[in-house]
């Protein structure tokens, strides 16, 4: 049954209009993804360890890209500083698991919370800047976080620290465990993103992105909506950092706080399709595949990513998803609105 809410226009002899959010496409898309999640949950039993390990990386990239897309694609906040929270999340796991001996799952939640809490004051600095200067501003803030973190010899200073808590687990188990957590986190982030886009926050965000002045004069509390998304993205990046820590067992400031994370998120979203929910998923698949194939080429691979990214921005603005869905209005998620007129006899026709 397709959930629908009838809207009745009073007075005029207009037929009834029905607003639907689910379409046949989005029903299939969403159920297809549901099945995919179940299959992926069984993956560690079916493939070898290195594949499972590589898939953790995929989920980390996926959840980073989905939230960066919420920031930039929906909220117009082009952050180049998400690595601040990746780093903080990674260190949070080490501190809470090794120093306080907390359960790993709990430390991941704490990584999200600590990142979110940190994002709150940071947002006040970052939100003073707009557009391009916002981007560099977030980058500076991430640098500040890194420079402060490396002050502490207790967590390895500039040379990094190892995560002891999970190292006594058998390797297979540890990787499978990390994999499931990564899968779970990616699914949760995806659900939250879908919910955000469907909700009033999503509408408000798009309004803010499209026209800040108009949105604020029409009653959208611009800063508060943007701040909530900023904090959500930080929490997700914190989880990504936590996943890096538990899957690699090593936290190095220069790598967890690397601006390359931002480069990767941006590439994924741009190639997949900015401002759509489907884009980051497709982009993550493409990026991940390229990485498996080409990462050994080092600088050459990164140059290629840069070129491909630029070509997409210049010539394929909507990314792969935009190009695919241009002709038909495709959507995998029930986030749009469809109007249809139901005549007296109840048959439906497109307007």
């Amino acid at each position: 049954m397709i959930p629908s809410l009838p809207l009745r226009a009073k007075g005029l002899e207009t037929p009834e209009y029905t607003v639907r959010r689910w379409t046949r496409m989005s029903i299939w898309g969403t159920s297809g993804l549901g099945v995919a999640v179940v299959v992926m949950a069984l993956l560690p039993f079916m493939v070898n360890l290195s594949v499972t390990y590589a898939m953790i990386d995929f989920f980390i990239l996926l959840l980073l890209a989905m939230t960066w897309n919420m920031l930039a694609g929906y909220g117009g906040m082009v952050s180049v500083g998400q690595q601040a929270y990746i780093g903080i999340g990674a260190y949070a796991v080490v501190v809470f698991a090794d120093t306080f001996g907390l359960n790993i799952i709990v430390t991941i939640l704490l990584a999200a919370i600590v990142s979110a809490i940190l994002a709150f004051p940071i947002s006040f600095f970052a939100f003073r800047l707009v557009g391009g200067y916002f981007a560099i501003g977030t980058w500076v803030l991430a640098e500040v976080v890194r420079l402060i973190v490396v002050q502490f010899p207790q967590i390895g200073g500039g040379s990094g620290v190892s995560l002891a808590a999970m190292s006594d687990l058998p390797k297979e188990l540890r990787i499978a465990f990390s994999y499931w957590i990564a899968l779970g986190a990616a699914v949760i982030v995806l659900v939250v993103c879908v919910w955000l886009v469907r909700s009033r926050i999503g509408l408000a965000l798009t309004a803010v992105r499209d026209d800040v002045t108009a949105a604020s004069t029409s009653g959208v509390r611009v800063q508060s909506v943007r701040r909530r998304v900023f904090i959500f993205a930080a929490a997700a990046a914190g989880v990504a950092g936590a996943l890096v820590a538990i899957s690699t067992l090593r936290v190095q400031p220069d790598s967890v706080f690397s601006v390359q994370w931002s480069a990767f998120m941006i590439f994924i979203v741009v190639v997949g399709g900015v401002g759509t929910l489907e884009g980051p998923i497709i982009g993550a698949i493409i990026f991940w595949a390229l990485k498996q194939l080409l990462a050994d080429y080092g600088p050459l691979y990164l140059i290629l990513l840069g070129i491909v990214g630029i070509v997409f921005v210049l010539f394929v603005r909507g990314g792969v998803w935009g190009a695919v869905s241009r002709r038909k209005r495709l959507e995998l998620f029930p986030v749009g609105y469809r109007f249809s007129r139901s005549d007296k006899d109840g048959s439906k026709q497109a307007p």
Partner: protein
Amino acid sequence: MNLLEPIVQGILLGGLYALFAAGLSLMFGVMRIVNLAYGDFAVLAAYGSLVVINVAAVNPLVALVVVAPLMAVLGYVLQRTVLQRTLGASPLPSLLVTFGLSIIIQNALLLFGSADQQRLSLGAIDTASVELPFGVRVGVFPLGVFVLAVILLGILSWITARTQYGRLVRAVSDDPDTVTLQGANPKIIYGVATAIAFGLVAIAGVAAGIQTSFSPSSGSMLLIFAFEAVIIGGLGSLWGTLGGAVILGVAQTVGAAFAPAQQILAGHIVFLLFLAFLPNGLSRRKVRA
């Protein structure tokens, strides 16, 4: 502790940062482009000079005479062919493209050069110093860079205030459509502005390459310093930018005098203080972004 010396050194360092900041702020002022590859172009110019020095056995200043015009031409071509296509209401395309350029330049330098730190040298001038009043000793080269920065900013500010090109630059940042109605082609105005910015960044890059060392990845830091100087100085004001650069330089050198490892963090903190308490920087003017 005698703070006079670090303060004077910081002021001179500010001259170098002002050279960086001026081009960044010019590109933003005219085209609303924030060029995330800006620092990398400075490093590219430094490597370019290295190549010229190795090939022609000249000193870095002579190399600069070759490299700066080449960078200006590169800037013009880049603006006309690539950046022009990213202009529009949304800052996203230009940010993404310049970030992509940043990655390409850094990795291309890694590929053709090496990850090692490099340095340009002027021979004896590198270490020469002069004594100023109150017994402050400063390097001859940093002093020269500061003087050069003031001269170049003076020229730039004269161009914007007094020449036809400068008028068109200011007009185009008000309203590009109406500039076409005066018979000017905004694309050429943009191209020339980018050329000027790239010429400046070449000078700044070579100066930085003599004063400190550089590596393929050092562009990011240069971008950040330029940005901090621009924000501290207040958008849209050239002399404000010099002021901002000097404040940043002094923050770093004074910070380093207290804790040698914290030079950069000290600069960041002063920047954040400005962002929190004086978000429009030294100039009170508000600029739309």
